[in-house]
């Protein structure tokens, strides 16, 4: 049984080297003071260090495992970048420091804005959104502000393909739009006829991922852009799959008006067990006035902040300060390490790895969801056939992969492909790793043929066996109670 930190508590114990010694009577009026002791652990420094070090070892991570999680771009996060972002000068800089004490940080932020403009083919960029979903929010809010600035207030509908990430419709709704789904045709492209039928004076825009979440490039993108622009709508580019085209095609050239970039995907910033992310937005000329603040401009040799004062039409602030500043710093450093030469190799090798993995899995008998299409940086296999013949599910295969030391691919997304695994190897994995993954997949199917229960019961080699999620949702246990011991 894995102990909780609270199980080790003894009243009065704490890391004495870490707290100031002063203890004087506090003259704050009694009715404002806390009377009870908050239920925090009471442990020694060693106990805390040991407990959390041990917990860390119960995680899969990129540093320890291959992590082919589709649509998440789990590439190597350079250690040097993390170390340099933790330099004391960066860590101690207060976000409201005067410009004269911020030129180091501001130079990095400014240069990243320029780099992002260059790789996306856009005219303006703001780094403040703190994750992809907040970038989407900023983007859709800018679309709304743009229409409102033209007094074009009848546009109440946002178009979203049925294969889209869940954040797309959720964001559109959060910005007050009605969501209209556009179907995908059998090749994985947006159905053009449905799109034509859907657009009109009520259309505010469309949110697209390209390559799509189906792992294929939307070939008719120029036509889609023409249809949308003719109808007066704008195009939002979900940058979740930017890794597939970095240095090859630019969203700005495809006709997109606004996009976000997931720094924690394409620019290799660490995911940290679910965040922080980074979701800068980049826009075409017509949306520049609406970018979220603050931004950095260069005037002569010095850098200055752009705030609401200089940008009266901005959608405003998305965080108290400048978003996930440390992630911006890391992304900047990654871009400098790659440089021009490295940047255009990202998509090449991400695509090479994906197509190689797909070819090998196909040869081993797995079924690609879009057999006729070239894979982008990721691809989908469907286990529909295996589910029918061997009575196993994509979930079973995923859990068994964990036993073999591989993180599972994304499961059951996109929603329109049954029993699917969405696989994204990224460019930083070596061929031997991909081969070992294929071997494991082959072995798992062999196991399923002789003993399907083996998969259904998996995993076996992890800290816990398969967990009861239904019970977790039904009998909510979200905090440990102090009287539990």
């Amino acid at each position, binding site marked *: 049984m894995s102990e909780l930190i609270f199980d080790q508590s003894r009243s009065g114990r704490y890391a004495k080297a870490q707290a100031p010694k002063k203890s004087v009577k506090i003259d704050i009026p009694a009715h404002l003071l806390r009377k009870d002791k908050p239920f925090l652990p009471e442990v020694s420094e060693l106990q805390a260090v040991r407990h*959390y070090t041990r917990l860390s070892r119960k*995680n899969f991570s990129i540093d320890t495992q291959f992590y082919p999680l589709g649509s998440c771009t789990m590439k190597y996060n350079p250690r040097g970048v993390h170390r340099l972002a933790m330099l004391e*000068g960066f860590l101690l800089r207060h976000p409201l420091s005067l410009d004269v004490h911020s030129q180091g940080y501001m130079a990095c932020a400014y240069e990243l804005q320029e780099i992002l403009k260059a790789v996306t083919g856009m005219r303006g960029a703001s780094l403040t959104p703190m994750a992809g979903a907040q970038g989407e929010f900023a983007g859709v809010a800018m679309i709304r502000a743009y229409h409102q600035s033209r007094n074009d207030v009848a546009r109440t509908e946002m178009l979203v393909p049925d294969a889209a990430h869940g954040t797309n419709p*959720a964001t559109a709704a959060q910005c007050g739009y009605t969501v209209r789904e556009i179907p995908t045709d059998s090749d994985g492209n947006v159905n053009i006829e449905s799109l034509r039928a859907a657009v009109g004076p009520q259309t505010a825009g469309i949110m697209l991922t390209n390559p799509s979440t189906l792992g294929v490039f939307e070939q008719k993108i120029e036509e889609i852009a023409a249809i949308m622009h003719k109808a007066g709508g704008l195009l939002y580019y979900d940058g979740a799959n930017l890794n597939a085209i970095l240095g090859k095609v630019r969203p700005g050239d495809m006709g997109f008006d606004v996009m976000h970039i997931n720094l924690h995907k394409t620019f290799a910033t660490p995911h940290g067990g679910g965040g922080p992310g980074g979701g800068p937005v980049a826009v075409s000329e017509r949306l520049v006035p609406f970018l979220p603040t603050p931004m950095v401009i260069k005037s002569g040799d010095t850098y200055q902040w752009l705030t609401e004062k200089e940008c009266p039409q901005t959608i405003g602030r998305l965080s108290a300060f400048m978003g996930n500043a440390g992630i911006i710093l890391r992304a900047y450093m990654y871009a400098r390490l790659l440089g021009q030469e490295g*940047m255009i190799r990202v998509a090449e090798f991400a695509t090479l790895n994906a197509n190689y993995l797909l070819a090998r899995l196909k040869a081993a008998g797995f079924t690609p969801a879009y057999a006729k299409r070239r894979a982008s940086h990721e691809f989908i296999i469907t286990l529909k056939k295996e589910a029918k013949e061997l009575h196993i599910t994509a979930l079973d295969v995923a859990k068994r992969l964990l036993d073999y030391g591989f993180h599972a691919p994304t499961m059951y997304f996109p929603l329109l492909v049954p029993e699917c695994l969405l696989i994204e190897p990224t460019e930083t994995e070596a061929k031997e790793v991909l081969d070992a993954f294929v071997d494991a997949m082959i072995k798992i199917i062999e196991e399923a043929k002789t003993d399907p229960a083996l998969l259904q019961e998996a995993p076996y080699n992890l800290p816990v066996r398969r967990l009861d999620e239904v019970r977790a*949702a039904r009998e909510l246990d979200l905090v440990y109670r102090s009287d539990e011991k």
Partner: protein
Amino acid sequence: MPFIPHTEHDVKEMLATIGVAKLENLFDEIPDSLRVKNLPAIPASLTEMELARLMRQRAALDSGMLCFMGAGAYEHHIPAAVWDIASRGEFLTAYTPYQAEASQGTLQLLYEYQTMMASLMGLDVSNASLYEGGSAAAEAILMAARSHRKHKTYRVLIPRALHPYYRDVIKTIVGQQDIIQLIEVPFDAATGQTQLSAMEKDLHDEVTAVVIPQPNFFGVLEDADAMTDWAHAHGAIAIGVVNPMAMALLKPPGQWGKKGADIACGEGQPLGVPLASGGPYYGFLCCKRDFVRQLPGRIVGRTVDKEGKQGFVLTLQAREQHIRRAKATSNICTNQGLLVTASTIYMSLLGPEGLRQVAEACYLNAQYLKKKLEILHGVEVVFHSPCFHEIVVRLSKPVDKILRLLANDKIQAGFNLAPIYPELGECLLICVTETKTEADIEWFVKCLAQVLAMNSSTIKNIECAK
């Protein structure tokens, strides 16, 4: 190429397996008209050694200040163990714990965090974090609106003494929904406390929620009991926006008034997260149990595996965007896992007693500074109320020039209030945490006295952009 392991031999073999002649052919589905050949605006690549040299130079440009700036981001001592452990690859480079069995480290830690944060706030439950304080306040307001009876318009009272940037973020995020009306509540010029009673005469309709900061932006302690009771008496949901460090010392939201605040949120940065230019930080959000289904963001629950062994999973996912899509409680997807990791380790090291001692040291240092400033010529303490670790003073000389002059002494003297609060002309918000010694404080006061004593015309000629 950096971080690409392929040898020429690998590439050849892999292309042969795929069945194409060259790498370029993998992009044959992309129309030629759209292709870019190179990216001239991107600088050439650097080695790690070259990058380190550049970054050290840049970090040095921003270094060496004695910081008396707070205003929502606070310098505290961070034990070495906090980031040593949080930087372990197993925490740093893991993804969102969708595969629970392969993520028990992160999931158990988040469960422990939820326990600690909920208790620190005196409330029943906590989510696994949001982006940061300002957007957490916006999410809390949206959550309150969802939880309230259906209305045509939801009216939310926001104190003018709430952090001005939080108010901006709330306006950006909540403002997208035309059905929520934000109403500003003034503060008392003598005490700096929010004057809810001033709202009484203009209130014709029901109030959905009342935001209660503790301490407020001026460092002033609000009468949170009275404000909470006022909110409940008006049928409104009470939302505390608090500094979590202060809650080791002050009465937490769940204990305010007769029934306790319903929701508490704020900025988690004071608990083990460095200033770092404003982020990444994390927002926390806690509530009474009745509100849990409207709570946005990730939530971890404890369950058992098939052998009955304790384990942890993401739960209540039916609220979230990847299931509910357009009907989700929020579009949020990411939490700030790494920062919560650091904060959980921080809270474990300090414990209830250590944390209270840090909070007390902050308070006592601020009191010490206040006493010194009260007797300083050209300085006037503006609000006469109990404070936590920030105070507002009015200076006899222009604040922007004084800030610039003290910067020459490597002192960051605080936040200039007048550009945001015109009624607080020449006022400065100063913060002192446990990181400052009496000698630091005395040095600050001495330098301030010196610049205030300078000739007015000399001061007037000081250049200060910002």
